[in-house]
């Protein structure tokens, strides 16, 4: 979806509160650290307040010849000027050093807290993505999700460290400062608060706009990122069609848009910072002016005015820092909203509250009047009834788009049917836990997904299988020979899309991966479409052994592979057209027999003869 400014609704105050509350929720497990950080920050501020004192002592006592303040009498009572001077110099070093130590600890603790929050949030989001159904993933771009996982989660740290922490310390300072100052001079203390109403006004007026711009800008960045990710992922296609310039032009226009949005955001931010700075400057000037008059009137000591001004700096500092970073804070907030948006999506395939683990099954599969449509609403399956007995091998045959893969996906519960039900050994799939179901159903997908790692790990795919088992699975998939020929054998690292491998080689790796699992129900979606008939023949010989006694569904286009099944099910338009064994279907003289006659030679073994003919 293209982000537009019009489509963006400025969030209500309640939403803001909810967002902050939620962020704080991620802070809760790390409360000790965070509070430690806040405490140390406070200590640092305190030390800042004390820091000018030694200098003042030097000026007043050492140089001015005034008496020592009373609290210092017992310590430095009999010490001479040189001694006091040395003492003052030493305390400056000590104060600065302890201020430094407080900063070390505070900085470290706050960064630590922030990192932990980011870590928690990122893992939570990642885990949630693992739970969301394929229906969700079908609608999403990898790049967009990746941006949320990798970049948007960082916002937790940004929001807390740039926003909440300075604001909180500012609020605490405000209260403390007011209490202390009111003790000296109530009027002056009230003047110091004069800046609050205009600040509030400025923040509420501008921050909404900043937040809106930050959201739009972040969406634009994410969209650009997704675009780049998918283009680079498809670079082969782009190059094959000579579309590099076009792709760059598209990227550039997206990038220009994003740049314009980001500059707009920063302009608004700078204007805002300017307003805040001006308000604060007026506040400072007012305090200096009034304070000076009060000193002239004799109502206030010069030192007390100094304290006022010093506190003012500590108060205004965080406000200033927040106002100068508001764009980042807003952007962090927008990022967090994007993270929470995904976290809020309820997985539509999830364990029912009453779900139990699926007990070990014999593999008795039933589809009962199953209806299914993807999000576009076009029915893919329209009332399929199919029973597969334990140990039976069924071939699904039919034109493309007939619903073969969809039917198989329902058995792995990648989706739930809209009507009807799917059962294994009498258990409705919706009543059992997804994990226990998938442990007993092996699915080899039509598309071969390989990872950027060794062949061995691609086949084992995280399961703790021995090298020997991996090798056996590869042998059965007829992949062993070509793997051995690779430079590093099973340890060869293959590219993300396995592009140095041919289609048939990739397919055999995927098959080996599926064969390594020993589940009672096996679904193979076009397992051998990229193999020549000769290799296919050999693969099937092994696979047949391996599948003996298991329930298997094989999706195929080749009649030669379909023929092997105990039963052939012909799907068309989301319904079962014909079913039966090869011979039964031939005898029925329906669609299947027509297909068989027009494309087969009656034996199903086409290519070896062809090869013999042409190479002879």
């Amino acid at each position, binding site marked *: 979806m293209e982000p537009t400014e019009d489509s963006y609704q400025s969030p209500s105050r309640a939403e803001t509160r909810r967002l902050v509350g939620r962020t704080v929720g991620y802070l809760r497990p790390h409360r000790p650290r965070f509070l430690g950080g806040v405490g140390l920050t406070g200590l640092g501020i305190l030390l800042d307040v004390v820091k000018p004192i030694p200098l003042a002592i030097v000026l007043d006592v050492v140089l001015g010849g005034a008496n020592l303040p009373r609290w210092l009498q017992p310590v430095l009572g009999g010490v001479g000027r040189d001694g006091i001077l040395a003492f003052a110099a030493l305390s400056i070093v000590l104060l600065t050093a302890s201020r430094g130590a407080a900063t070390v600890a505070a900085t470290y603790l706050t960064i*630590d807290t922030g990192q932990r929050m980011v870590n928690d949030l990122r893992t939570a989001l990642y885990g949630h993505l693992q739970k969301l159904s394929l229906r969700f993933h079908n609608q999403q771009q990898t790049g967009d999700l990746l941006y949320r996982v990798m970049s948007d989660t960082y916002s937790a740290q940004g929001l807390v460290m740039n926003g909440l922490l300075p604001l909180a310390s500012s609020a605490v300072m405000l209260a403390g400062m007011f209490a202390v100052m009111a003790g000296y001079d109530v009027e002056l203390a009230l003047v110091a608060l004069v800046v609050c109403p205009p600040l509030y006004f400025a923040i509420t007026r501008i921050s909404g706009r900043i937040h809106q711009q930050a959201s739009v800008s972040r969406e634009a960045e994410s969209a650009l990122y997704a675009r780049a990710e998918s283009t680079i992922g498809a670079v082969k296609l782009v190059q094959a069609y000579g579309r590099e310039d076009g792709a760059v032009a598209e990227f550039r226009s997206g990038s220009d848009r994003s740049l314009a949005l980001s500059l707009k955001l920063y302009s608004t931010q700078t204007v805002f910072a300017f307003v805040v700075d001006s308000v604060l400057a007026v506040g400072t000037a007012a305090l200096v002016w009034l304070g000076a008059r009060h000193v002239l009137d004799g109502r206030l000591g010069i030192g007390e005015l100094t304290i006022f001004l010093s506190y003012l700096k500590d108060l205004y500092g965080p406000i200033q820092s927040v106002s100068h970073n508001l764009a980042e804070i807003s952007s962090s907030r927008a990022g967090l909203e994007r993270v929470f948006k995904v976290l809020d999506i309820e997985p539509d395939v999830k364990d029912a509250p009453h779900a139990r683990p699926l007990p070990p099954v014999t593999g008795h599969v039933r589809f009962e009047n199953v209806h299914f449509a993807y999000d576009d609403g076009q029915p893919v399956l329209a009332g399929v009834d199919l029973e597969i007995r334990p140990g039976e091998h069924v071939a699904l045959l039919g034109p*493309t*788009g007939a619903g073969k893969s969809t039917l198989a996906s329902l058995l792995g519960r990648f989706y739930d049917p809209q009507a009807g039900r799917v059962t294994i050994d009498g258990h409705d799939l919706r009543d059992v836990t997804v994990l226990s179901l998938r442990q007993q159903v092996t699915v080899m997908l039509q598309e071969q997904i390989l990872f950027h790692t060794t062949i061995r790990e691609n086949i084992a*795919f995280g399961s703790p299988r021995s090298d020997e088992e991996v090798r056996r699975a590869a042998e059965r998939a007829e992949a062993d020979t070509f793997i051995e020929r690779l430079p590093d054998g099973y340890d060869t690292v293959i590219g993300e899309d396995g592009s140095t491998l041919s289609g048939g080689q990739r397919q055999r790796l995927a098959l080996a991966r599926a064969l390594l699992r020993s589940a009672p129900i096996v679904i193979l979606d076009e397992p051998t479409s990229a193999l020549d008939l000769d290799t296919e023949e050999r693969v099937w010989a092994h696979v047949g052994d391996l599948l003996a006694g298991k329930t298997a569904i094989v999706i195929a286009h080749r009649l030669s592979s379909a023929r092997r099944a105990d039963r052939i099910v012909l799907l068309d338009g989301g319904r079962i057209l014909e079913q039966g064994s090869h011979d039964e279907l031939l005898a029925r003289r329906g669609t299947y027999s027509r*297909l068989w006659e027009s494309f087969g030679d009656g034996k199903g073994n086409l290519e070896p003869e062809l090869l013999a003919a*042409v190479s002879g």
Partner: protein
Amino acid sequence: MPRLVRHILESLEKEPSPRLIAISCAAILGLAAGDSILFFFTRRILIGASRDVEFEMREDLFAHLLRLPPRWHRKSRVGDVMSRAVNDLSAVRMMIGPGIMQAANTIVVGTIAVTLMALASPTLTLVALAILPFVAVATQVMGKVTHRRFTAIQEFFSEISASAQENISGVRLVRAFAREATEERRFDAKNREFRRRNLGLARLNALYFPMLQALVGVGFAGVLWVGGRKILAGELTVPRYVEFNLYLMELVWPAIALGWVVNLWQRGSASWNRMAELWAAEPLAVESAEGPLPGGPLEVKDLTFAYDSGPPVLRNISLTVEPGTTVALVGRTGSGKSTLLNLLLRLEEPPFGTIRLGGRDLRDTPLPLLRRALVAVPQETFLFSDTLGNNIAIGRPGATPAQVERAALEAGLGPDLATFPKGLETIVGERGITLSGGQKQRTALARALLTDAPYLVLDDAFSSVDTETEERILEAVKARSGTRTVFLVSHRLSTIQHADVVVVLEKGRVAGDGNARGASPGRRPLRGAGRATAPLRRSRGGVAVADHLPEDEAQGRGFDRGILRRLLSLAVPYRGYAGGALVVLFLESVAQLAGPLLTGAAIDLVFSSKESPRKGAPPSWGGSSSGSGSSLAAPALSTPSPASTSSRSSRRSGSCS
């Protein structure tokens, strides 16, 4: 100027008045406003320029990546590349935006303040600057460690991002094998490690900055000690001392900012080196797209080829294909069919002199022309998340909807289009997931058919299409092709039957060729050669191994001058801004330095004018009054002491955090 201010102060204190206080307040206001305005422009100009540069670099990088040869892309991971293009780039931007701004600010303020200090008291200046060597050493060490650790952190981030990318795009497989929990655990473990590394760097910074502050504290103490003794000895007047102290405080910020700049710079250069690894890869040459499309016969002569250092995939292939022929390539999986097609398409570079198209060596044929002439439907179909129509029109951006539709119909998508809610305007998922395998393949086919290229390569393009549909499509393709030369790779007899010529590949060699229908004896469009009799050439010398990319050498190289030049060249369009920014920076620094003086003046006035303060006045010293007020108040207001510097630093840092 400081002298001027001092003179004013000295004259003012003789005749203080509330009016002057008001003037001082107005001056504070004016200075603050001036500072804000200047800050506004500095920020607008420099941050804006650094954003511009960032976006421009990103666009350049993207264009560069798209032009890198498939060989390069085969070795890289999308997540890693993306992480460099986004994450590292932003560290580089921090280096050129806030980094440069801060460095300039530090230098300007530092120079002015040191000059003023030296004018006020050369001895004290030397004392204050005695900490400099320590600062330099600490900064040097910190810089080195930061560089090293940050490189490691960015690498780890890339790793996390790449594995997350693979997980998300392979989500179906993860589901099918019920590996969600494992994947989540692994991801969490990686993140913990990432956090650990990050904290390592944070610890370093957390140590460095306070250490810097402590050093500055030592400097202050030294000045206080020496200065105090000098005053006692009558060698220095208090106002001079106070004035000096004010300047010294102005130096605190630049000293700390310096560490910050070094930090930014080291992070930026670490990231820059990682990006440089991308830049160092040699892109495909940009060639002219002008000129006639290649046509005529395709000749392959004695072609031997291997991927990288692997064993040869093709050996001594020779064949000739006349225009208008449909050639079927058959053979076992792994026999080299797809490799041969990749070489024809120059997705891999064939050795010179092995493939000629229309009499011209393929390597001499400009790529843009070749790509327009030779269009392929690959085994795996990639669909962008866009409308079906736009996905088809990729090869011919200007195509009319009618043309797109005709291509879709020819590719056999007609019945499917009818069931899609918006026909060609239907959005297909990122990998066309809601399309069935066969529908995806036919979309890819329509894409190719739309181009009208004289050579069409169908690499097992019908494996997920049922035989009947395939039959219809091939009939349509042939009927319209005319003189189009078609290469087919397939395992199906039904496909191969459509070929005029069949070439059988076996273990990288032409094992045989012939006419699939055994007919048309008068026509021999294909002449096979190099059969079993061809000599075996296993030696590496005969194998085409493309030149090694310099990416390995680029790793671990220090800061590259050429790259620095490139960086600077990006900034050239903004040099006007940069000059302006420097002027603004200078003015801002002056405002910054004048602020405390005027504040001090105001307090001095108050102090010296009142005769009966409530609490009893500190005695005044010598001719001038009141150091105490100004030296205490000044840091309170606008001089950066550590707390306010931290707020300043975050304010300057812009979007760094």
